[in-house]
């Protein structure tokens, strides 16, 4: 609670965050930037490509980390993450139906701009799965059962996806597989604004959930005794996670491991489990990690860009492994 203790840590995080934004946007153009000689072409490249991409990285980092934190506290499980409710499987199902399923029937469906076929399909799939989880939740008492339902839904979705992959032509399968690898570059300027609106609304909702999550850490019964309306709290947490995770899956694909690993990294750095502090820590750390992933996916090999999931996995897995191996470090919030 003592804000003085955290001031220095947050100051460092803000500085790193700002530096990473700068690098992500202007990397390769530094000399031109400082000599004030950005050409027309460079200006377009920065405003049309670099900025949307950087914003996508920041938004997905923030969204996944905050919803990962919420899921870990709600389910009191250190290995929970934004996808435990099966949201990403819903997205994958939607995208697979568009990229592979529709082409089998001969229809092509491809909008443009903010509402391209893939984005719509993915968002619809996420929403559908969210609604299923909601209606199950109204019947189920125990939160762990919702977790099981999420896993089962995910398996059912991937079964359908596998069938589609098996019967579809190679070209379509590849475009689906590329989607599952996650991509920050598919976000254009129009999509960027829609993405901002969704993540911002999820984040604003989350602002009101930090105190409640502090009580939910100790289970439903204590949360109730301490004054939480547990049912309402859980529905709002699911809604914010749905908004945050759903929009990331829709615009960037199922970006892996960030949502599980960053909340732990944040807890280690901040040294608190108070959600009022962790929330801001996750926003900064999530943004930093995704920017780091984006920058390294571009500079590791200058010729090709690596898929972003490869990078986030390479960053996330060692962190999770470290946490699992050193027992005392892994403490669910």
């Amino acid at each position: 609670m003592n804000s003085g203790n955290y001031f220095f840590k947050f100051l460092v995080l803000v500085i790193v965050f700002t530096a990473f934004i700068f690098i992500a946007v202007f990397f390769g153009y530094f000399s031109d930037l400082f000599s004030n000689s950005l050409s027309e072409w460079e200006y377009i490249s920065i405003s049309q490509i670099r900025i949307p991409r950087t914003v996508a990285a920041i938004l997905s980092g923030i969204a996944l980390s905050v919803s990962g934190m919420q899921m870990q506290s709600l389910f009191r499980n250190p290995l929970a993450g934004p996808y435990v409710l099966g949201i990403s499987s819903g997205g994958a199902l939607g995208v697979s139906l568009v990229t592979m399923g529709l082409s089998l029937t001969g229809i092509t469906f491809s909008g443009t701009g903010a509402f391209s076929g893939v984005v719509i399909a993915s968002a619809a799939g996420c929403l559908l799965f969210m609604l299923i989880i909601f209606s199950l939740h109204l019947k189920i008492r125990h939160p762990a059962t919702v977790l099981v339902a999420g896993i089962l839904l995910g398996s059912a979705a991937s079964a359908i996806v596998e069938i589609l992959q098996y019967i579809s032509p190679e070209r379509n399968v590849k475009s689906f597989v590329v989607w599952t690898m996650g991509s920050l570059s598919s976000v254009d300027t129009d999509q960027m604004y829609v993405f901002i609106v969704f993540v911002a609304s999820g984040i604003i909702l989350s602002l009101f959930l930090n105190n409640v999550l502090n009580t939910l850490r100790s289970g439903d019964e204590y949360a109730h005794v301490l004054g939480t309306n547990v049912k309402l709290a859980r529905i709002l947490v699911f809604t914010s996670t749905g908004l945050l995770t759903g929009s990331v899956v829709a615009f960037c694909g199922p970006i892996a491991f960030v949502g599980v690993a960053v909340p732990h990294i944040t807890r280690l750095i901040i040294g608190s489990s108070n959600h009022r502090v962790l929330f801001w820590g996750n926003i900064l750390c999530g943004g930093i990690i995704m920017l780091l992933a984006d920058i390294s996916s571009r500079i590791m090999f200058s010729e090709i860009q690596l898929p972003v999931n490869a990078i986030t996995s390479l960053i996330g897995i060692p962190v999770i492994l470290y946490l699992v191996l050193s027992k005392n470090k892994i403490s669910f919030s």
Partner: protein
Amino acid sequence: MNNILKISELRTGYDNAHPVIKSPFSATAEPGQITGIIGPNGSGKTTLLKTLCCLIKPLSGNVLLGNENITLLSPLERAKRISYIMTGSSVIPDIKVSEVVEMGRFSGTGWIRSHNQTDKILCENATERTGISHLLSKRFHAISDGEKQRVLFAMALAQNTQVMLFDEPAAFLDIPAKHGIYKIMHDISRTDNKTIIFSTHDISNAIAICDKLWAFSENKIESGLPEYLGIKNVFSMLFPDNILLFDTEKMDYVTTSISNSIPVDIKGDGTKYKWTVSLLKRLGFDPGCNISAVLSVITNENDDKWIINYNSNQVIVSSLAEFEEKMKCVINKQPL
């Protein structure tokens, strides 16, 4: 302000077909009083406590605090009036002790506000009253069970409610920790004028500290002064089998001696005598049988000897281990 907790005609349980508390229960608990709930496992102690903090809805009847029906209060308003600490502490996450205490302030801050000066003072006061200031920076899972219970008391105190409910607060604790907990309860009931209700299996201590007892037995609930229940012989009838009897000398339960125990006449004095009697009881003898002819034991406080007379043989042993061996021979009907 009238802050009496008034339970009237309450029936409660998890489903209507099998209520845990079957016959309607009425009682009151007043500020500044400690009420103890006693009774065998499964008699509904925890169910009643959970009903009082609205974790379980009553099947019929109601609970009033002052003039308010507690089941009609919003979660936050209820949490400003009633706190509850469950038995055990396994559900509390491994967070800093200070953060556990701060959780108690949720009813004050609500969903949005952060801690203000009042919240901080209440937390500090709670920490001080329970004597856990030195633990604040430790992690909850790293402290002892007795300390954990104190921390949970601090959380409940920080909640700053009129009614405080505790489910077996002293279970699993060693004797000093247990008395520490009772002392805190007594202290907060007297100085802060709180209404304390707690369940316990530790009946002798409950008699010693409670202003009132609610005794749950299979079919009915008796309530009143501990001594009143004692005079009505409620304690002996609490556990309906014949092995346990309530001994009013010790103010605790004693097991009745096993019927086929071997009578032994033991003479002596002091601590050594008392422990020898304890050993004989444990082995299945019936000490204090003055007319016994077959076996007699003589101990003296000042030497290391036990004189055993058995079947007109006399054996003198000089260590307790040897004495135990000889007594086992008696049980097995072997010569000494």
